[in-house]
């Protein structure tokens, strides 16, 4: 007689209201005890019709909508869109605008990675690093507030220039912040990154081999965590990133196979340090100039289409814009880094435990605002 001892799988619905789905992600977990046989992500709870909105407003009017995609890295979203339209119109910006844009983008990258690292700490059950990260992120937001009045959704990078010039004494404040902040990264490493339990929890979990990462189109720290050295800032420079001296950190597999959750996490921490280096150089390169110099009176690009990608904190953010020569874009399509990373989720999480699911979701650092748009 044959006895079937395999029990039923229990479906556990994680989200959209769950503390560690980083927004309104819903995961359908087919569980056998603590082991997850299949994890199916359901997205779309934060869909706001960005692309349709973009077809109904003029070119500068799209910028506030881009803010709301990846709402923890709005500067970078603005930047990508502004650069794309500038490429379509053939606008060249002066050195001051370039440097300010780089300072803002990199500060924003630091803020975004701090949020990612802090919330990852919470996912792993450690609450204190989160508040330490937010304390430092707050200082960056103060700098942004001084510049453009907003703390989260900036609308700062305009097509052809910037909203405002930076206030007097801003450079010194940025340098002061970096002097304060760089030792804090080491503190965070001592408290969380190299904690024995933290490494145990993350180093052998959620492994993405390089070929899988490439085939799913993962980008940014997720791709670099798998050991693939690809950074748009280095390999396809824009804004004059080629003049800056910085490294592209990749996952080394210090504590386990390459491409684990730990690698993706530690790449972000290392990137924060690289961003500090870039900001310091950009502050030195800052020359006087008018940030409104090349601002067009009316943004009316010629008919045609353009694609441009930039390195956002979460990966490559691509804008594809089709212009019919009118004041409104005919089509704005966004290639979202979080969406491609999320597409690999089922593959990564097969056979993981429930605790590992949380670790994997945290390590690919998704923002649902960008996935759903």
């Amino acid at each position, binding site marked *: 007689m044959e006895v079937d001892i395999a029990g039923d799988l229990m479906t556990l619905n994680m989200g959209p209201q769950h503390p560690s789905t980083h927004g309104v992600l819903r995961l359908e977990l087919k569980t056998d005890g*603590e082991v997850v046989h299949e994890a199916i992500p359901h997205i779309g709870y934060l869909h706001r019709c960005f692309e349709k909105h973009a077809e109904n407003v003029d070119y500068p009017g799209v910028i506030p909508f881009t803010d709301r995609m990846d709402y923890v890295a709005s500067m970078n979203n603005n930047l990508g869109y502004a650069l794309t339209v500038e490429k379509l119109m053939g606008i060249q910006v002066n050195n001051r605008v370039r440097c300010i844009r780089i300072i803002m983008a990199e500060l924003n990258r630091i803020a975004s990675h701090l949020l990612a690292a802090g919330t990852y700490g919470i996912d792993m059950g450690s609450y204190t690093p989160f*508040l*330490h990260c937010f304390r430092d992120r707050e200082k960056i937001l103060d700098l942004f507030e001084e510049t453009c009045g907003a703390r989260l959704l900036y609308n700062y990078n305009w097509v052809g220039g910037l909203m405002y010039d930076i206030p007097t004494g801003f450079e010194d404040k940025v340098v002061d912040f970096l002097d304060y902040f760089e030792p804090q990264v080491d503190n965070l490493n001592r408290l969380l990154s190299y904690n024995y339990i933290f490494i145990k929890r993350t180093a052998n979990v959620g492994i993405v081999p390089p070929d899988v990462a490439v085939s799913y189109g993962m980008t940014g720290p997720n791709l670099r965590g798998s050991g693939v050295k690809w950074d748009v800032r280095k390999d396809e420079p824009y804004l004059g990133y080629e003049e800056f001296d910085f490294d592209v950190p990749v996952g080394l597999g210090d504590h386990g196979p390459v491409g684990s959750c730990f690698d993706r996490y530690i790449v972000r921490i290392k990137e924060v340090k690289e961003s500090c280096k870039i900001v310091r150089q950009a502050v030195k390169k800052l020359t006087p100039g008018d940030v409104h110099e090349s601002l067009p009176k009316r943004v009316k690009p010629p008919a045609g289409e353009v694609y441009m990608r930039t390195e956002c904190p979460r990966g490559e953010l691509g804008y594809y814009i089709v212009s019919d020569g009118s004041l409104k874009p005919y089509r704005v399509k966004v290639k979202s880094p979080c969406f491609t990373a999320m597409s690999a989720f089922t593959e990564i999480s097969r056979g993981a*435990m*429930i605790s590992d699911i949380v670790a994997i979701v945290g390590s690919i650092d998704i923002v649902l605002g960008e996935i759903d748009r």
Partner: protein
Amino acid sequence: MDSIRWLLKQVLNFEKLPELLQIFLPMLASCVIILAFVNVLGMFLVWLERKVSAHMQDRLGPMYVGGWHGWAQSIADGIKLLLKEDIVPAAADPLLFKMAPVVVFLGAFAAFVVLPFGEYSIAADLNIGILYVLAVSSLSVVGILMGGWASNNKYALYGGMRSAAQIVSYEIPSAMALMTVVMLVGSLSMQEIVTAQKGGIHHWFIVRNPFTFIAFFIYFTCSLAEVNRTPFDIPEAESELVAGYHTEYCGMRFAFFMLAEYASMFVVACVATTLFLGGWSQVLPGKPWIPGPVLFTLKALVLVFVQMWLRWSLPRLRVDQLMHMCWKVMLPISLVLVLGVGLMQVI
């Protein structure tokens, strides 16, 4: 209880009372005292935890209620929880759901009976003191399982199951660690264990014997797992299971779970104090200059502080890692300790 009986004799015409009352009145009085103490202690520890965590995280924590550093915050929270609507989910098992918080609290509360706060301040010096503590504190597992099951919520069920597995496993090494001291003293009575350590810090078991020194750390680690504290807070794992076994609870029932958690934190700290840190005995040899109960509470609070300190600095282990640590690390070490102490006794 003897001191309470003595106190009652002073204020009441004790000998004239019916015999039944003579037995039950001191019992009732001790229960009321312990209950009041547990409640105040729970509120104090909640406040302390919030303050400790806040200062570790560059915050201030409660600052307004009551004036001085928000000392009345817990009272305000308690009143709020009392006034909240009492919700029992429609699909829950009502009887078990309502009983679970009481059972959990009972486990924590009953252990206070044998805690030796001072030479005369002990409700009942049972001759099986430690065994009793171990027995009644495992009662809370039953309550947690009941709560997890009765809530009819998958997260609560996971929490309850994890908790049962964890607490049952960790009781073995922690009991083994306690056995080392029991073997040295030759008694399970709490008072006798304290008496064996009288005469200053060098008589405490934590420094007197290399095996008990290690046993202290084994017990302390296991006790963290028994009271579901980080790095072993897997049953309530906020980021995984929302709130674990008490996901569906609110209002006063939730408060009971919280109170039980803080009370059992204090209980395990007290047990560690009694067995390894000399209980109410003085730090320095010679004339006693701090009252025993005060000293005992202070020692226990230091351990409670360490529990909080660990909670706010460490991440959480995974279920399989937790079990690995219990069965393959803690248990062998504690067995070696028991063996070592046994051999020492023989030689």
